């Protein structure tokens, strides 16, 4: 068998041409039957994000989008595309990175984010949790006797929302890609949690002054495409995994299954999220009505008298730390405003 294969091995790494031009292809998009060079792949990706943002109403001059950036492939790809689109449409993007205090992982992430923001010329706010509240995420989790990932998610949600409120932002953009959204929504189906499922659209609503709506610019971007975009554009990204990441979370199993399906039925993942978006109104009608108020300590969104962040920090530190975090964020936001006024 090896005999007749020799000529094929000789033409090793011969590149096919782009479907749109003569340049060599770097990406194959099976569901669109396209092979694209770097330039056309970038255009393809940017158009995908642009379409989602247009549907949501972000592409307007004066809009403010806070982009949550971790240093990973998805949020870096998201920031790079948002930065390009913001220049085209005149909306403002501000990156926010939270230093969680997870040893070298956090150090590497910060280094990559600072490099990315410099390269993209995007203003980025860095919030070092330990410097603000005196605890890292692992310490906070240990003191509060809660799983690290749960406290990490809680801290990130709280800080991103607080930054959005202080900046008067229209949205907080998250790097959730198509695969993430499918995994989260199937998990919600498994748990029969329709209220949660109804939140997995390309955006969620803002409750003025207390909660900023979430935006998912990568709603129609596959995880593999997001990685490819970061790699072909040589974006500085952290490849390492968080040391606290569970070994085999349910989301990974769902993604693996969906990727096997996608191999046999190209485009099935895209169809899933598009149909999900169309059915959101129906899921919202089934969702349990939730009453929200303001936290009595920090004034941000809360389902009860005290928000989860103030409750956890009160348990860990003896007092709710929401007000402290909010005042530090106010100071950082004021410094951004000062800088933008400077000639």
């Amino acid at each position: 068998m090896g005999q007749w294969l020799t000529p094929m091995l000789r033409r090793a790494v011969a590149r096919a041409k782009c479907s749109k031009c003569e340049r060599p292809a770097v990406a194959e998009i099976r569901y669109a039957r396209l092979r694209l060079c770097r330039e056309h792949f970038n255009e393809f990706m940017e158009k995908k994000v642009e379409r989602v943002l247009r549907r949501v109403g972000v592409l307007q001059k004066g809009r403010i989008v806070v982009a949550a950036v971790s240093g990973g492939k998805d949020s870096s790809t998201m920031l790079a595309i948002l930065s390009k689109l913001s220049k085209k449409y005149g909306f403002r993007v501000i990156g926010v990175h939270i230093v969680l205090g997870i040893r070298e992982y956090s150090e590497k992430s910060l280094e990559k984010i600072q490099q990315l923001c410099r390269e993209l010329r995007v203003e980025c706010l860095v919030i070092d949790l330990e410097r603000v509240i005196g605890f890292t995420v692992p310490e906070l989790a240990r003191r509060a006797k809660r799983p690290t990932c749960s406290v990490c998610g809680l801290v990130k949600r709280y800080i991103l929302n607080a930054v959005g409120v202080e900046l008067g932002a229209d949205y907080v953009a998250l790097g959730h890609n198509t695969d993430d959204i499918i995994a989260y929504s199937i998990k919600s189906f498994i748990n029969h949690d329709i209220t949660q499922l109804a939140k997995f659209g390309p955006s969620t609503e803002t409750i003025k002054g207390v909660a900023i709506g979430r935006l998912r610019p990568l709603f129609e971007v596959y995880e593999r495409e997001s990685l490819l975009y970061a790699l072909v554009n040589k974006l500085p990204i952290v490849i390492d995994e968080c040391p606290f990441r569970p070994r085999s979370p349910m989301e990974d199993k769902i993604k693996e299954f969906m990727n096997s399906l996608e191999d046999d039925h190209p485009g099935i993942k895209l169809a899933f999220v598009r149909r999900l978006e169309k059915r959101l109104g129906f899921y919202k009608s089934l969702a349990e009505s939730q009453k929200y108020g303001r936290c009595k300590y920090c004034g941000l969104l809360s389902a009860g008298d005290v928000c989860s962040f103030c409750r956890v920090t009160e348990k860990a530190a003896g007092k709710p730390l929401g007000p402290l975090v909010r005042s530090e964020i106010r100071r950082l936001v004021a410094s951004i405003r000062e800088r933008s006024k400077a000639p």
Partner: protein
Amino acid sequence: MARIRVRILPSNITREVETETGCVSEIIRRLGFPRESIVLLYKGEPLLDDMCLEDGAVVDAYVATSGG
């Protein structure tokens, strides 16, 4: 036969994959990943499915589903 050395990221584990064709689709199949969840890079450039590598080639395999 083409033996391809694959460095899997982020785990940084290197595996030697024995293939009949040296082609990307076969490498991915032998690694045991769905093709949708992995990106192969050769000398820093992404590889397409029908591209083939010579015996002894070293590639990086980025697992898309890891990290974010």
